[in-house]
């Protein structure tokens, strides 16, 4: 059955990529829509969030249980029958969602009602917003779906009237992501404080100190990649990583990759960085939450996992690039535009999926840090290393790059 675990996601990604290509390359232009307008951006956001992120977040809740079960030599949830259909227990996340929706929404007597309600919203909203800058394909050139476009033609088309596979194309790019992601800390802090519970307060304090500390490393670690690719814009960074694996961020910035990935996992607050939860010590900042409000924290955690994967794939693994694949296929004039668009989406989705799997594996391999170990790692080891990475990268870029002086 192992091959099904590879085949099913792959088929789903192919279908999704094809739907996106048709939707933005044919349907919207055929209806007279402008691919640069605000409603096209809204449709793109709806597609990537409702078509990819939310379902994957749901599946990840099941994957985490199954994968941990495999790693611990047990079966895990392998059935959730809908009639005769067992579907490997995949329907568990539907059952989970139903349970959370119908559970009592309990608010502690002394809780601050307003901030208690604001906590889960502040946890989930920043993650949803940050997906706006993630490029999930180079983009589609309306009206040329069956043509064989060269790289130059496609770039020109994207600048004039084509639809980028990215909700917003901002010059500040990843700076926008850092700005919005820095607001996510309020979710944990407010939840911890508003619950009027000593343990949740401790969890909230731990969360805010941890997220503040690792945000610094995260920002500094990715600066090296900015220097190498000369841009903050994720789509441009992906474009600059070209079609050779040797140009990927993980090759040009190996230290930056390790530092950024570590700090990003710390930001998701999952084991080994789950000190804010620490269910054997303080239970967590969401200890007083029940029903769908808890569900929002839970969903936000898995969406952060997906987002971390998406950013790491974009900056360090070439985003939607397939080595050797140009806008007209591996050989000039080989593939029509729609096929390349679909393949690029599949490449991006597979990279994100594999990185999600890798994060789940880390989650179930490592024991939890102690708070003092966490602070020592963040401030005394990762931070100096990321500063050294910037210094070395800047030196190399200055020496090698023509025109850098």
């Amino acid at each position, binding site marked *: 059955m192992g091959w099904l675990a590879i085949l099913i996601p792959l088929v789903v990604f192919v279908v999704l990529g094809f739907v996106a290509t048709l939707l933005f390359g044919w349907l919207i232009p055929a209806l007279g829509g402008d691919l640069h307008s605000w409603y096209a951006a809204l449709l793109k956001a709806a597609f990537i969030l409702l078509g990819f992120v939310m379902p994957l977040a749901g599946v990840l809740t099941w994957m985490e249980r199954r994968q941990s079960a495999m790693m611990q030599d047990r079966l895990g949830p392998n059935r959730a029958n809908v009639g005769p259909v067992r579907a490997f227990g995949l329907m568990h996340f539907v059952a989970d969602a139903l349970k959370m929706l119908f559970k009592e929404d309990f608010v502690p007597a002394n809780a601050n009602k307003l*901030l208690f309600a604001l906590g889960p919203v502040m946890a989930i909203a920043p993650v949803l917003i940050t997906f706006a800058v993630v490029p999930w394909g180079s983009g589609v050139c309306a009206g040329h779906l069956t043509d064989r476009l060269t790289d130059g033609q496609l770039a020109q088309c994207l600048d004039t009237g084509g639809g980028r596979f990215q909700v917003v194309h901002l010059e500040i790019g990843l700076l926008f992501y850092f700005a919005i992601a*820095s607001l996510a800390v309020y979710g944990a802090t407010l939840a911890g404080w508003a619950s009027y519970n000593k343990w949740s307060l401790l969890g909230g304090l731990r969360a805010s100190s941890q997220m*503040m500390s690792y945000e610094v490393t995260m920002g500094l670690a990715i600066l090296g990649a900015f220097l190498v690719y000369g841009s903050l814009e994720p789509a441009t960074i992906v474009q600059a990583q070209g079609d050779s694996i040797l140009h990927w961020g993980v090759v040009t910035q190996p230290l930056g990759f390790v530092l950024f990935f570590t700090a990003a996992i710390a930001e998701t607050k999952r084991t080994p960085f789950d000190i804010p939860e620490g269910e054997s010590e303080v239970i967590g900042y969401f200890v007083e939450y029940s029903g769908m409000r808890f569900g929002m924290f839970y969903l936000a955690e898995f969406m952060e996992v997906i987002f971390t994967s998406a950013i790491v794939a974009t900056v360090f693994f070439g985003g939607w690039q397939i080595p050797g694949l140009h806008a007209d296929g591996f050989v000039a004039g080989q593939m029509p535009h729609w096929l390349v668009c679909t393949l690029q989406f599949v490449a991006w989705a597979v990279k994100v999926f594999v990185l999600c799997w890798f994060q789940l594996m880390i989650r179930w391999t490592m024991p939890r840090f102690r708070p003092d170990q966490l602070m020592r790692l963040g401030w005394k080891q990762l931070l100096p290393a990321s500063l050294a990475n910037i210094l070395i990268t800047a030196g190399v870029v200055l020496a090698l790059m023509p025109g850098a002086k």
Partner: protein
Amino acid sequence: MPAAAEGHLGQTIVFWVCTAVVLGGALLTITRRNTVVAAMSLVATFFGLAAMFTLLSAQFLAAIQVLVYAGAIMTLFVFVVMVLNRDEREPWALRGIVGKALGIGALGYLTLLGGTFLLGASALLTKQGAYHTEAPKPGWGGVADVGNALFTTYLFPFEAISLLLLVAVIGAVVVARTVKHAPPASQEPPTPPAHGEH
């Protein structure tokens, strides 16, 4: 051109929504007794300000505004408020006739200041050529633009401020460090504390 008119309308709507967020957040910040609610209102104000910066094509400034003020400094504020967990009643606040008189005086001063500013601003805006109406160059206010300005024209102030921040960081470390007492000159083991001592 209908597209331009539509863009103008959209910008106007965004501007007034942002104005409401900024002013509402600022008012809530100074009127709420609950310190955490006040801090979150200030975050909303910062967010609205950042949106206004993007309307002025200052994208970099907008991102930094959210990143530094809303994301880092206010987090620290909330952290401190949570640790202290102060009572919502204000025992030190001036009450009675003295407090009211002071409040009215402050309000009058504020009205005077605001009125002067608005009058001056309206005089400036009606003057011909006092402000630019054309759209800024592409890339204005972007990362490359701000970076160029910081590292060429304003290099000295930039470096001077970084030195100031370094001094502040060293000062914070000096204040916060745990003082290690020198070991006593005699080699005797320290005497255990007497029981029942409070």
